[in-house]
């Protein structure tokens, strides 16, 4: 005989039913005995709800409860995060936006994609702070200080991101030339792979370099651009800082 068979035999004893009549008569006697010693307890709707909630909460296996909480947090961040996109930093819901972004970052496992998204978020934060300061004249000095600190933090985050993602960045910039080169393009290359800082090369096969009197090599180093934006911010040129940060975001995205 196996354990299973033995347990099955023991389980068969569940079929034993006590005498229903005697249980019924005992019930009546018991009811009569306890009736004098107590009253009926009638909980209100709120009390019933609290009791049910407490009992459901205590019935659920704790790790399952923790997992459900995490899923709810992340899911809520994903679902409601989009509604918070246009919330500015002076709004009390701004923290919810930041949490939602953290949740979205937490769900990305690809390092480069995560880096890109973090950069986007930091750029958008910095820009929204600059926007809030430039548009809202009613900001008091305490809020101004808080937002300025936040801006500096975001810029430092962006700088860190820029250093990490720094590599070879090539952009095409139109050249304003005085003579025959009008309309041609110059390819400006910046090598910034960390190996050498002297990797700038300008290539224009159509004309000798000496003949071009102006070469507008646009600054495309994100760190330098961020420095500029920071300087503009300190000079209270908020709109200039915002547009500069937008440009930084574009460069980093490329």
């Amino acid at each position: 005989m196996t354990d299973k068979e033995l347990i099955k035999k023991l389980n068969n004893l569940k079929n034993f039913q006590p005498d229903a009549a005697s249980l019924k008569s005992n019930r009546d006697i018991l009811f009569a005995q306890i009736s004098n010693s107590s009253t009926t307890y009638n909980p209100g709707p709120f009390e019933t709800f609290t009791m049910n909630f407490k009992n459901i909460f205590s019935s659920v296996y704790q790790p399952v409860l923790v997992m459900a909480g995490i899923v709810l947090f992340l899911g809520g961040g994903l679902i409601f995060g989009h509604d918070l996109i246009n919330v500015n930093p002076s709004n009390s819901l701004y923290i919810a936006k930041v949490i939602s972004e953290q949740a979205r970052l937490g769900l990305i496992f690809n390092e480069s994609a995560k880096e890109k998204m973090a950069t986007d978020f930091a750029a958008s934060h910095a820009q929204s702070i600059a926007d809030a300061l430039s548009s809202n004249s009613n900001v008091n000095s305490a809020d101004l200080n808080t937002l300025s600190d936040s801006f500096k933090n975001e810029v430092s985050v962006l700088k860190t991101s820029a250093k990490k993602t720094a590599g070879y960045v090539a952009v095409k910039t139109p050249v304003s030339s005085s003579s025959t080169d009008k309309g041609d393009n110059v390819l400006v290359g910046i090598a910034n792979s960390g190996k050498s800082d002297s990797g700038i090369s300008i290539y224009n096969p159509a004309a000798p370099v000496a003949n071009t009197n102006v070469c507008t090599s646009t600054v495309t180093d994100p760190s330098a651009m961020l420095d500029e934006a920071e300087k503009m911010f300190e000079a209270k040129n908020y709109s200039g800082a915002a547009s500069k940060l937008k440009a930084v975001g574009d460069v980093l995205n490329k």
Partner: protein
Amino acid sequence: MSDKPISKLKEKNLFSRLKKKDKDAFIEAYDLYAADINRFIYFKVGSKEEANDLTSIVFLKTWDYVCNNSLVDSRTLRALLYKVARTSIIDYYREHHVVASIDDEENKIDVIDESQDIITQINLNSDVEMIKDKLPEIKAEYREILVMRFVNDLTMDEIADITGKSKVNIRVTIFRALKALKDLIEEKK
């Protein structure tokens, strides 16, 4: 099986109401557990009449306990009822100096219910016969735990709470009890 969480919640709600000394909740508890408690007592004392009397005593004692205590030390209502049942049986034996149990030849187990069909009755009868013959031969501790676990479907946590032992200890005891019972049955064959 699917209604297990619901019945668990129902029991918890019942226990919460009982903590407020609600007599209706107690009567509901009686309807829910009287049969289980009666069965548990019956397999300990071996007599239907005594089991009925003791069941009544157990519920009355439990009500007294509920009225005079805050019930903070009891995990579930079921565990509380079984605890009271165990002490009531011990008290009963002390008072009456009874040594009767399932193994007594005079206390024949007669658990056949007329409402059950013949095949079930035959199966039940043979299983009960086997239990009748062999259960008394194993230790009382083993017998009690086997009944609680496999006849009355108590959880390990509840058995541990009732007996005051650890879950690991209960697991080991169940394993040993099953082995002891199996050895006895196979020995006979």
